């Protein structure tokens, strides 16, 4: 407002200056049309702007002067000094009014009837040919305009004064009352609005002004801080019920709330701004792909915080492009499917409960389930068996999975999923979520739910193990209080807590376990104010009884480990899945200002930021999506955690191994990698023959040696015994066990502490301590070096002499499993547990014929290792074979790129041996050829 008047005044003063000059010029050369045109235009502009700003007196004068100038221009009035003087007189009046405007901010009282009469007289043509029709009509029009404007004009003046009295508040108020508020609207747009509005509304209320974004950002920051301070004050006030401050603070509270709302509104922009590029993208796409696509956009006016808008722009563009690219079929296919030729992509935005919902839907072919399934399996994200148990919706969710989409990108197989993980990450970053519904053949709908603003969020304050955390209210669906007895109890499945929420089973995560909070670190004082077990009302004051109970458990070590009697479950909604977070106590919700996490803590997925609470303390804000991610992995990670804390870890948790579990005399279960077992057989005791102290059985036309696992295997009281058959080439042996328990897929952590022969060590498998069997031990004890008697010509001894092989693998389990196999196959095996040591050996001049390296290793992975070896080292020409537990096509490509000859799955012993021998033979041939050439 202020600014606009100011701008007008500056502008008008400039005009008046040049008008003086121009008029003088005109007087000297009355026929200068250009000059006359210029004068006419300037006066016209002043008149127009006056109307816009609601300055009736100024406008009237300018208008009448313009009329006269119009006649000059039309050439039906001669430019005489008298008339020019009249115009000068008008300019003087205009100058006077403008001057007064500058001083007081409003038009001076009074009328310029005399001047107007003179101007009108000239206009109506005292000296001119008598006008026939136009003048009266124009006059009438003029009068009408005057009537219309004089009344709102008065109101405007009053408003103006009010505005100047409360210059800072008014813009916000006005914003409120205007349906079309556009903070950043360009002046021309504003002018257009105005001309429309003049007829039905006072001109003042439609005013917009340009404010730089920085100013708004600063304002927002300050308001945020103000909200925090307000919260602090209210907190203090709560402690003093009878205080003189109560009333003023409450007033302050209201004002701050309104201010916050107002400032928030200034940052709002219609979502259509983010959509403006989309029609073009769809148009280009349809031409490029030969498709017919209609883009329909609804709810462009839906407003949201510009910061949020910026952040969703790219994901939205990406998704719309995806819909057009992968969703909509080519016209022929559409017709074949009985759909209209033209496909439709619909963008729809609307408000719902404090969020903005954006739907992107298409009537295309939907997500191809089979392709997704195939991808999931080939990328090792889930097994076929796991997929079978999933609903199609669950399977579709995999398109948000990083692994899946990356692979899609590489192979450019059509079907959604390109970069969808990035889309989801971006949306989750702003506290939103994304859902997907798709029916094959019918189309897909993505639903994005995002908060209105990021700066201030409402959060639930919870406590776990004496520490407080904030959970954004946006993702909290409900709160449940649990009790040890009765309906609302937490139940356990294999140590995993779950909760029956109405008709559904809700997975639970315990916040203290998740954050590894130590209950015994909690100061007593903290505990005294924690946990209100009896009071169902959240955040109510605690009873003495519960405090005592808490104290008791505090002092009692054993009780500490037990779950607390009453806990709260925060039912949390995320894009991935719904789950409950177990906390000890729930406080209020509080408006918090999200502050970013310091850089050194960025790696912690679980926090989205931190904030300062009303009481001045700093607390961390939990990121529910991060919690979901971490919690989803926790089941598998837990085995790692509880199993072995020392160095003998089996690589990363990624390595899943199929294991055959069996038992011997009911002791600890034993496990053996399934891939080593050729077959499971039941052998009749009566079929067992003995030869030179060795048990044998006729098996597939030849004799197979049998050995009992150990002496505790009872052979007498049963008819049949299960036997694990291990075989290599045409030789086999059987291991007699008591009972086959199960086949399982597990992450194995082997503790290499076993001294017992035949065991590699023990691991936690299916939550039980399990011995991992050293198959090689049995193979070797059946017969001395039974396997390598002959037949290995083609392997390690290819080309004569033992081949030196370097095996680099960080997991002791694989080293111990593979080294004997390779040894038996005739290689001279050196094992190392990391690539760095290997490179050092290389520097030290060690020589090998072939290198077998794991890919997933800490510090330096296989790729980097290969790159270094191939780049510049004495091993440059040594063939390298990669071992990996999950080989994606991308990995394979990369492997080849960095110089691996082959990529082999772990445990695929046969392929490894074949690959080794092939590689060596080829290497040798190449070498011989080279020699030949040299010779």
């Amino acid at each position, binding site marked *: 407002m202020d600014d606009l008047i100011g701008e007008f005044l500056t502008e008008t003063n400039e005009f008046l200056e040049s008008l003086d000059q121009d008029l003088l010029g005109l007087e000297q050369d009355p026929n200068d049309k250009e000059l006359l045109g210029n004068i006419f235009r300037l006066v016209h502009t002043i008149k127009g702007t006056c109307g816009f700003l609601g300055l009736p007196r100024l406008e009237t004068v300018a208008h009448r002067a313009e009329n006269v100038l119009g006649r000059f221009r039309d050439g039906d009035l001669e430019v005489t000094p008298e008339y020019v003087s009249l115009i000068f007189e008008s300019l003087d009046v205009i100058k006077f009014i403008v001057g007064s405007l500058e001083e007081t901010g409003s038009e001076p009282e009074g009328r310029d009837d005399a001047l107007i009469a003179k101007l009108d007289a000239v206009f109506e043509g005292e000296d001119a040919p008598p006008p026939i029709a136009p003048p009266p009509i124009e006059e009438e029009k003029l009068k009408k305009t005057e009537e219309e404007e004089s009344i709102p004009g008065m109101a405007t003046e009053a408003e103006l004064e009010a505005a100047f009295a409360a210059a800072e508040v008014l813009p916000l108020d006005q914003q409120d009352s205007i349906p079309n508020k556009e903070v950043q609207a360009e002046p021309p747009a504003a002018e257009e609005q105005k001309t429309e509005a003049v007829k039905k509304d006072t001109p003042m209320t439609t005013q917009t002004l340009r404010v730089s974004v920085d100013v708004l950002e600063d304002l927002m920051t300050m308001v945020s*801080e103000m909200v925090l301070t307000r919260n602090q004050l209210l907190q203090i006030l709560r402690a003093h019920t009878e205080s003189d401050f109560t009333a003023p603070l409450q007033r302050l509270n209201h004002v701050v709330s309104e201010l916050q709302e107002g400032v928030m509104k200034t940052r709002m922009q219609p979502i259509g701004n983010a959509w403006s590029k989309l029609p073009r993208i769809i148009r280009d796409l349809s031409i490029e792909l030969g498709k017919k696509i209609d883009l329909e956009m609804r709810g462009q006016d839906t407003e949201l915080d510009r910061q949020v808008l910026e952040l969703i722009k790219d994901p939205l563009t990406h998704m719309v492009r995806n819909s057009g690219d992968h969703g909509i079929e080519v016209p022929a296919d559409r017709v074949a499917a009985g759909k209209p030729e033209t496909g439709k992509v619909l963008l729809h935005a609307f408000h719902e409960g404090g969020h903005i919902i954006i739907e992107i839907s298409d009537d295309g072919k939907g997500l191809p389930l089979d392709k997704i399934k195939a991808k999931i399996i080939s990328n090792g994200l889930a097994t076929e068996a796991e997929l079978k148990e999933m609903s199609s919706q669950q399977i579709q969710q995999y398109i948000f999975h990083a692994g899946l989409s990356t692979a899609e990108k590489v192979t450019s197989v059509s079907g959604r999923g390109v970069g969808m993980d990035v889309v989801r990450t971006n949306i989750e970053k702003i506290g939103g979520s994304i859902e997907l519904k798709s029916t094959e053949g019918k189309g897909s709908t993505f639903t994005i739910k995002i908060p209105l603003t990021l700066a201030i969020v409402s959060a639930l304050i919870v406590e776990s193990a004496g*520490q407080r955390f904030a959970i954004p209210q946006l993702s909290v669906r409900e709160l449940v209080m649990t009790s040890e007895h009765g309906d609302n109890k937490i139940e356990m499945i294999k140590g995993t807590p779950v909760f029956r929420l109405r008709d559904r089973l809700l997975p639970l995560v315990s916040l203290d376990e998740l954050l590894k909070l130590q209950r015994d670190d909690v100061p007593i004082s903290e505990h005294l104010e924690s946990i209100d077990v009896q009071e169902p009302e959240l955040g109510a004051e605690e009873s003495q009884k519960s405090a005592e109970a808490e104290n008791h458990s505090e002092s009692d070590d054993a009780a500490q480990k037990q779950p607390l009697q009453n806990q709260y479950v925060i039912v949390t909604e995320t894009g991935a899945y719904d789950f409950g977070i177990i906390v000890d106590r729930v406080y209020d919700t509080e408006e918090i200002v999200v502050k970013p996490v310091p*850089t050194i*803590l960025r*790696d*912690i997925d*679980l926090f989205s930021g931190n904030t300062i609470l009303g009481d001045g303390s*700093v607390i961390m804000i939990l990121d529910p999506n991060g919690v979901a991610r971490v919690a989803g992995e926790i089941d598998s990670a837990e085995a790692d955690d509880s199993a072995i804390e020392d160095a003998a870890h089996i690589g990363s948790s990624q390595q899943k191994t199929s294991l055959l579990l069996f038992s011997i005399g009911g002791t600890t279960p034993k496990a053996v990698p399934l891939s080593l077992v050729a077959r499971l057989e039941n052998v009749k005791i009566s079929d067992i023959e003995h030869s030179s102290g060795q048990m044998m059985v006729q098996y597939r036309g030849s004799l197979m040696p049998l050995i009992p696992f150990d002496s505790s295997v009872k052979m007498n009281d049963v008819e049949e015994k299960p036997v694990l058959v291990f075989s290599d080439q045409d030789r086999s042996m059987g291991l007699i066990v008591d009972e086959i328990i199960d086949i399982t897929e597990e992450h194995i952590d082997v503790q290499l502490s076993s001294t017992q022969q035949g065991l590699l060590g023990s691991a936690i498998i299916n939550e039980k301590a399990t011995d991992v069997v050293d198959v090689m031990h049995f193979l070797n004890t059946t017969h001395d070096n039974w396997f390598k008697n002959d037949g290995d010509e083609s392997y390690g001894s290819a080309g004569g002499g033992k081949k030196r092989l370097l095996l680099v693998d960080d997991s002791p389990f694989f080293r111990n499993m593979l080294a004997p196999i390779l040894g038996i196959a005739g290689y001279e095996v050196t094992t190392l547990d990391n690539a760095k040591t290997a490179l050092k050996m290389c520097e030290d001049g060690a020589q090998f014929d072939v290198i077998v390296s794991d890919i997933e290793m800490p510090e330096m992975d296989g790729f980097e290792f290969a790159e270094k070896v191939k780049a510049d080292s004495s091993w440059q020409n040594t063939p390298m074979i990669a071992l990996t537990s999950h080989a994606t096509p991308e990995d394979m490509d990369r492997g080849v790129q960095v110089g691996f000859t082959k990529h082999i799955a772990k445990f695929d012993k046969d392929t490894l041996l074949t690959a080794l021998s092939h590689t060596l033979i080829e290497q040798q041939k190449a070498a011989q050829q080279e020699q030949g050439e040299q010779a």
Partner: protein
Amino acid sequence: MSTAAANKDYDLDGESRDQSKDFLTIIIAEQRFGIPVLQVQDVLGEQIVTNIPLAPSEVAGSLNLRGRVVTAIDVRRRLGIDPSKDGEATGMSVVVEHENELYSLIIDRVGDVLTLKDDMFENNPPTLDAIWREISGGIFRLEEELLVVLDVPKLLSTIHS
């Protein structure tokens, strides 16, 4: 007023003529360290620090400094020194800014501000403890003792979760 002005002049002159710098000295486990005084934003007494779960062990927590969230760093732990015994530490901390974020370095005690001439400066002895070598920007030979220059950016940037 005049003293302040004089001081300022002195500093400016000192800077150009004698090549000297001002250091805030701090004491950790009886060792004197120096932080370039221009890097110091604030010196705080003992503060209430909120623990941050899953954070690197050197991170003592976060605290509220006039509405800004400050990450507290346990410098003892960062240097691999045992936790302080009773009476050894005052819980004081020095607030520094690093990459637009505030950190408070929890140390034992704060000493004087010293103006140290460049000719008293020595590079790190190559035999210095590896952790210390990482965070030390060099040594000043004071008359009675040695002062280790704390390289604050390095100290902070080498903390990882």
